[in-house]
């Protein structure tokens, strides 16, 4: 493979926490060297890419993407999700097992892996369910699934309600060193909820859940971690009340990390307005105070990971009264532009954003990517953080178009995406 030479690039290095002009050389699909300032003369036979002062960052590792294979390929396939990811600067998608049927056996996982390899232009690493059918009763074949390539185990938004089942699954997972991803939510309290409780939900007459349900779910999971010593990641922490518990658990040396979806960082409960179902998420959008607290937690590193929580839904499942409508939003292509809202608002700088979007998820999953250092895979995104555009949801490459940012004024566009040094997307 020929060598690539990125010059005149603003290198966003989340490991070093730096953002400075420099160059980056790629050889054999890996980052060979980087440096500050003007690039040394390119050796013969290398392709020089003048980045024109635009940003070059490690490609996004999106932890928790739903691709609807098997079962609902009309909502999202590996081909469409992969193309959407490439267009969004996402070089690795970490897929969720909440498909129909659930990805809970090595056979299903192999099918998925085969489909992903055949169709997706980006890296796909799969997660598998923690319990069979995500029913919360019997644990899956965690060992076999790991052998087949599962990087983490999660029942997604189906909380394992039975503490005994979860404690056994965590103990077993610990012995194998498997990462378990939980959805911190007290299932009884949050049952049937379509909004976060408060004045807005009351005025709209929507069934609502107290933000306390998230803390209760997290508290329980933390107690079980103390008991079992498992490796654990909370998929989405979205409320201020849950943060002290997370902080204590980390201080106590538990092997715990936490994530948050981009929508909870950029939108709040009022965005639902007159029952706009594209804003119906799980957990529901929160109060502005919570949003601010969670942004601060990302800044300090208490929350480790920002993900898109990409959840494709077709038009029919959203064109319903709010309570009946499906939850979730697509996010692969809008993750980076939405994250740029936080950058332009002065809330988070670029190295911090890429620490949460690329470096930390890669580290947590034991992947070599997410870095700009020599030896890391050349998974890269070149983007212009300032380019303005108005998002038209029908231009998205995902099969499903359920984005809350439709018609939104965005700033920040992906110019090109590279996976293992090969271009997988280029904006014309």
């Amino acid at each position: 493979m020929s060598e690539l030479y990125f010059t005149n690039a603003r290198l966003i290095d989340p490991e070093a926490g730096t953002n400075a002009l420099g160059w980056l050389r790629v050889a054999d699909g890996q980052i060979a060297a980087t440096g500050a300032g003007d690039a040394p003369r390119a050796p013969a036979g290398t392709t020089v890419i003048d980045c024109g002062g635009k940003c070059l960052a490690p490609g996004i590792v999106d932890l928790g993407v739903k691709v609807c294979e098997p079962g609902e390929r009309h909502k999202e396939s590996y081909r469409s999700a992969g193309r959407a990811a490439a267009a969004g600067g996402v070089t690795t998608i970490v897929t969720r097992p909440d498909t129909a049927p659930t990805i809970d056996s090595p056979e299903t996982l192999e099918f998925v892996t085969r489909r992903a390899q055949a169709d997706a232009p980006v890296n796909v690493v799969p997660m598998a369910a923690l319990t069979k059918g995500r029913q919360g009763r019997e644990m899956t074949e965690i060992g076999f699934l790991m052998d087949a390539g599962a990087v983490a185990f999660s029942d997604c938004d189906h909380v394992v309600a039975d503490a005994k089942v979860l404690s056994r699954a965590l103990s077993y997972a610990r012995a194998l060193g498997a990462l378990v991803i939980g959805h911190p939510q007290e299932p009884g309290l949050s049952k049937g909820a379509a909004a976060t409780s408060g004045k807005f939900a009351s005025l709209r007459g929507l069934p609502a859940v107290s933000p306390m349900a998230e803390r209760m779910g997290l508290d329980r999971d933390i107690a079980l971690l103390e008991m079992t010593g498992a490796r654990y990641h909370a998929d989405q922490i979205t409320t201020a009340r849950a943060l002290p518990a997370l902080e204590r658990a980390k201080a106590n040396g538990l092997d715990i990390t936490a994530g948050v979806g981009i929508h909870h960082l950029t939108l709040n409960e009022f965005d639902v307005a007159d029952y706009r179902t594209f804003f119906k998420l799980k957990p529901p959008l929160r109060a502005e105070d919570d949003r601010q607290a969670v942004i601060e937690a990302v800044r300090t590193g208490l929350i480790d990971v920002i993900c898109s929580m990409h959840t494709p839904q077709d038009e029919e499942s959203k064109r319903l009264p709010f309570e009946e409508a499906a939850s979730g939003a697509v996010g692969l292509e809008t993750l980076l532009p939405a994250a740029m809202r936080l950058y332009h608002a002065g809330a988070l700088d670029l190295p911090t954003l890429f620490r949460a979007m690329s470096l930390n998820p890669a580290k947590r999953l034991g992947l070599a990517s997410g870095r700009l250092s020599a030896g890391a895979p050349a998974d890269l995104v070149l983007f212009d953080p300032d380019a303005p555009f108005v998002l038209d949801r029908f231009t998205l490459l995902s099969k499903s178009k359920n984005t809350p940012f439709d018609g939104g004024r965005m700033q920040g566009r992906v110019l090109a995406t590279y996976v293992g040094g090969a271009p997988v997307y280029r904006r014309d």
Partner: protein
Amino acid sequence: MTFAHRHLLGIEQLSPQDITTILDLAETYVDLNRQSAKHCDVLSGLTQINMFFENSTRTQASFELAGKRLGADVMNMAMQASSIKKGETLIDTAMTLNAMHPDLLVVRHPHSGAVDLLAQKVNCAVLNAGDGRHEHPTQALLDALTIRRAKGRLHRLSIAICGDIAHSRVARSNLLLLGKMENRIRLIGPPTLMPSGIGEFGVEVYDDMRKGLRDVDVVMMLRLQKERMDGGFIPSEREYYHRYGLDAEKLALAKPDAIVMHPGPMNRGVEIDGTLADDINRSVIQEQVEMGVAVRMAAMELLTRPLTTGAAV
């Protein structure tokens, strides 16, 4: 007299002037309805379809009568029994009816926001006859008209709304309307039946009914749904009646001329004492029903005025 609304989806969108406009027009229909010839033809030639996705006898009858007295062609559709059972979506149902060119759709639905959704998809005026726990605007308007006629004004009154506030669209619409007209509102009920965030509504909240009723001008009772009576939200029917049922003793704490209201249908002996409900000196419950027809006639006339007069909205 202007009324610049295409639909009547809730009280939230109405200004105090809009509310006064509707109530003033409704007064003329109160007079009409008391004559033996109750017919006028302002809606003549127009088609009104009542779509009730949730059981209702009283509200549907009131809307039907209102439409017929105004000369509209009224059709009732019991939606539970029809296509919903066959898997048709709300929007498909709406589009089907829309193709029949109605001029006015009166819709009740068990889910909050469903009527808003439907209104976005059809070409005619939509009148919300109750959506989930969200709004029931004509109920609040008829309550307002009843209060205005009994008290001579609709501002600077102290009004207690009692019972299951959390699940009540009647309570929400009344809260909004009475707040817009600058009244003092007290909400009385057990904390399990109070909506979240109630502290931010600018109302006084009481869990002790005796304290809450002190010196109020209006006592508005709400219906307690049967399915909420056992254990989940309140311990039992009899304990609820003891603590939150309106009887003569508790009413004595209110102003001597305080009126008693209830949106119906009543659970006698659960939220209200039967004798009190029938006391013509205190209870205006029958008058509420009467005002209901008049207010709905007024609302329908205002919504269809652009069609009947050719005037731009």
